[in-house]
C-alpha cells in the first residue's frame, strides 16, 4: 500500500491539509518516520492535521501518547536514538513549556555532547499564534525561546505550499527542528504542486517585491504584512515583504539585500516585542546596513504582557493599521 501510494497531484489545499499531505508523504516515504502526541491518532489532532494518518499507517507509527509534553519529547529522543524519525505534536503553543527541559537541555545539545556521534532527527510541531478567540495558553508565540537555543533549527510556515514542503524537509533534516504552524491560517487555501521544486529549508523568500521599505515577517504575520503592502500601494508606497521561513538559521543575505535596496525596515511578529526575536533582526540589520538605513528598524508586535483575554486580542495583535503606522513612522524619521 505504501509503495503504491501515488504522489498527490497539484491541488488547492488548506494549510492544515497541506501539512496532512506532507506528513502522509513522509510516512509513506520512510518507514522510520513516526507521528506522536496527544490525540494525534484516532482523533486526528485537535486541528485535524494528522487526520486519517493512524488509520493508514497504524497505531505503531501514529502514536496517541499519555498526557505529558516532557514525556512526548523525551521518548521521541529515545526513539530517534534507536533510528526513528519522530514528529511530535504539541497540542497548543502554551503547552510546550513542560517539554522545555527535554527540548533545551537534551534535544538541542545531544549532538554536541556526543561530538556528532548522535543525530536527533526529531521534529516538534507547534501550532502557534492568536487571533482565534481562544482561552489562555492557546494563542502564544514562543519562537524566541527556541531561536535563542543553539542546537535547534526553528522554522515557521506561512502558506499551504510551504507547509507541504517544509514539514517534509524538517522530517528529512538530520537535526532537531521546531516547526511553527500559524494556527489562524490553518484554513487558508492555496494551490500546492507536489511536483514543483521546493525552496530549501532555511532560505527566506521575498513574498512580495517592493522598493521603499522592507517588512520582515514569518508565520501568521506574513499574510498581515502582504495585506499591509497591498494597502500601502494604494497610497503609492512600494512595500517589500520578506517571509523569513526560518529563524534558525536565519537567511541573513536575503534580508540584507532587501533592506540595502529599500533603506527602511519594519519587523513584525505576534510575540511580545520586548526581548523578542525582532530584536535580533533589528540589531543584525542595523549592524550590516548602517549606512543604508534612512530610519531605525522599527518593531511591531505584542506588548510586554501575558496574552490577553480574547476580547482584547485585537488590541494586542499587530494588524494592518499598526504595520502601516510603523511604515509611516519610518518615512517620517
Amino acid at each position, binding site marked *: 500500500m505504501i509503495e503504491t501510494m501515488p504522489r498527490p497531484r497539484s491541488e488547492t489545499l488548506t494549510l492544515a491539509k497541506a501539512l496532512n499531505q506532507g506528513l502522509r508523504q513522509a510516512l509513506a516515504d520512510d518507514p522510520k518516520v513516526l507521528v506522536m502526541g*496527544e*490525540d494525534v*491518532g*484516532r*482523533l*486526528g489532532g*485537535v486541528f485535524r492535521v494528522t487526520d486519517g494518518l493512524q488509520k493508514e499507517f497504524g497505531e505503531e507509527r501514529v502514536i*496517541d*501518547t*499519555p*498526557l*505529558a509534553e*516532557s*514525556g512526548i519529547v523525551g521518548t521521541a529522543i529515545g526513539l530517534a536514538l534507536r533510528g526513528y524519525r519522530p514528529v511530535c505534536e504539541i497540542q497548543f503553543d*502554551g*503547552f510546550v*513549556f*513542560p517539554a522545555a527541559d527535554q527540548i533545551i537541555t537534551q534535544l538541542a545539545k545531544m549532538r554536541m555532547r556526543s561530538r556528532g556521534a548522535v543525530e536527533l532527527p526529531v521534529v516538534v510541531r507547534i501550532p502557534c499564534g492568536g487571533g482565534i*478567540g*481562544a*482561552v*489562555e*495558553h492557546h494563542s502564544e508565540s514562543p519562537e524566541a525561546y527556541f531561536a535563542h537555543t543553539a542546537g535547534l533549527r526553528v522554522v515557521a510556515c506561512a502558506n499551504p505550499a510551504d507547509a507541504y514542503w517544509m514539514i517534509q524537509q524538517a522530517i528529512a533534516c538530520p537535526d532537531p527542528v521546531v516547526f511553527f504552524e500559524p494556527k489562524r491560517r490553518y484554513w487558508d487555501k492555496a494551490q500546492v504542486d507536489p511536483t514543483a521544486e521546493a525552496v530549501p529549508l532555511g532560505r527566506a523568500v521575498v513574498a512580495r517585491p517592493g522598493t521603499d521599505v522592507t517588512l520582515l515577517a514569518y508565520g501568521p504575520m506574513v499574510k498581515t504584512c502582504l495585506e499591509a503592502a497591498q494597502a500601502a500601494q494604494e497610497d503609492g508606497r512600494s512595500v517589500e515583504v520578506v517571509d523569513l521561513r526560518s529563524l534558525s538559521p536565519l537567511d541573513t543575505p536575503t534580508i540584507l539585500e532587501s533592506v540595502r535596496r529599500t533603506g527602511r525596515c519594519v519587523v513584525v511578529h505576534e510575540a511580545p*516585542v*520586548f526581548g523578542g526575536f525582532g530584536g535580533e533582526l533589528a540589531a543584525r540589520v542595523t549592524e550590516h546596513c548602517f549606512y543604508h538605513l534612512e530610519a531605525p528598524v522599527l518593531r511591531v508586535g505584542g*506588548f*510586554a*504582557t*501575558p496574552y*490577553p*483575554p*480574547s*476580547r*482584547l*486580542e485585537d*488590541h*494586542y495583535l499587530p494588524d494592518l493599521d*499598526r504595520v502601516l*503606522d510603523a511604515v509611516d513612522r519610518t518615512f517620517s524619521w
Partner: protein
Amino acid sequence: MTLDAHTVQDTELIQLLTPEGERLEHPDYPLTLTDQQLRDLYRDMVVVRALDGEAVALTRQGELGLWPSLLGQEAAQVGSGRALGAGDMVFPTYREHAVAYCRGLPLLNVLKLFRGVDLGGWDPKEHGFHLYSIVIGTQTLHATGYAMGIQRDGGHGTGIGDAALVYFGDGATSQGDVNESFVWAASYNAPVVFFCQNNQWAISTPLERQTRIPLYRRAQGFGFPGVRVDGNDVLACLAVTRRALDLARTGRGPTLVEAVTHRMGAHTTTDDPSRYGHSEELETWRPKDPISRLRAYLSRDGLASPDFFDETDAHAKREARALRDACLALPDPPPAELFDRVYAAPHSTLEEEKAAYDSYLAGFR
C-alpha cells in the same frame, strides 16, 4: 513483593447509593444527612446541570468561545464540594463549575473567562476557590504548597485547621507535576486532598493509555492512601471527601481520591466525540446518571414530594435564564486591562508601551 498488572483485580469502589437509588451503608464512611440536606444536594446537581446546559447553548450561539461541560460529573463535584469547610481552599481545573457553585462563586465569573472578557479574574480568597488552571496538572503543586503554608500557619493538625482540595483529571495523572505534587505532599505530610475525576477520557485519549491499573493505586507508590469512590454517587463522594479532609486537618496527611465517573458529553464544545467511539459507552453510563439515582432514592423513600422536583426544575430554569441575561449584558473590557493587571508595582518598560499605544489609539479619534 511484585505486582503483575495483568492480574490486578478491580478493588473496592465506595458506594452509598446504587444506580437504582438504593441506600447502602459502609463501615468506614458513615453518613447521616437530614432530608433537607439530601434535597439540597439534589437541587445543587439539578441547578448546575441547567447552568452548564445554558453555557453550552450560549457557546453554540457564539456568545462564549468554548465551554467544557461537566455533564455527568455533577455528583463528583457537588459531593466533594459540599464536604468543604469555609477555610478550605479549592484548586480546580477548567471543568469544576459545580464546585464553584458550591463555593458560592457566581458562575458568571466562569462564563466571563470562556467569553474572553477576562482570564478568570475572581479573588480566590473570597470564596476559597482558586482560579481555573488550564495547563494540565500545574495546580496540584500550587495546592500542595498552599497546604505547606497551612502547616506553617500554626494551629494545624488540631482538626479545626484548613485543608487544600485539588481537582484534576485522569489524563492529568500522567503529568510530571502531578507526580511531583504526590512526592511533596508525602514528604511533608501536607494537608491536601487530591481529587481525581476519572471521567474515562482525556479528550480522545481513553484511560487505558494513561494507566493500566486503577488510578487510586498511584498513591500507594508514594506512600499515602488512595480511595476509589463511585463518582456518580453524590453521597459517597461527600463522605469520602469529608474523611480525606478530616485526615488532612488532623495531621494525617494527603489522600488521593479517585472518583470514577463519566464525561457524558464532548470534551468541550469544539470537540467531536463521534470520531473516537465515545458514544458507544453512553448506553452503559446513562443508567448510572448521578441525578436520577438520587431522585429515585428521594422519591422511593418519600424524602421529597413531587412538587419539590417541579419547583427545583423551575428554580433551575430561572437560574439559567438569569445567567444567560447576565452573560449577554457583559461589557467588553477596555484596552487598559491589557496593561494594568500585569504587575503590582510600576514597571517602566510596560508603562512606555502603554503610553505609546495610548497615543497610537488617540490618533484614530
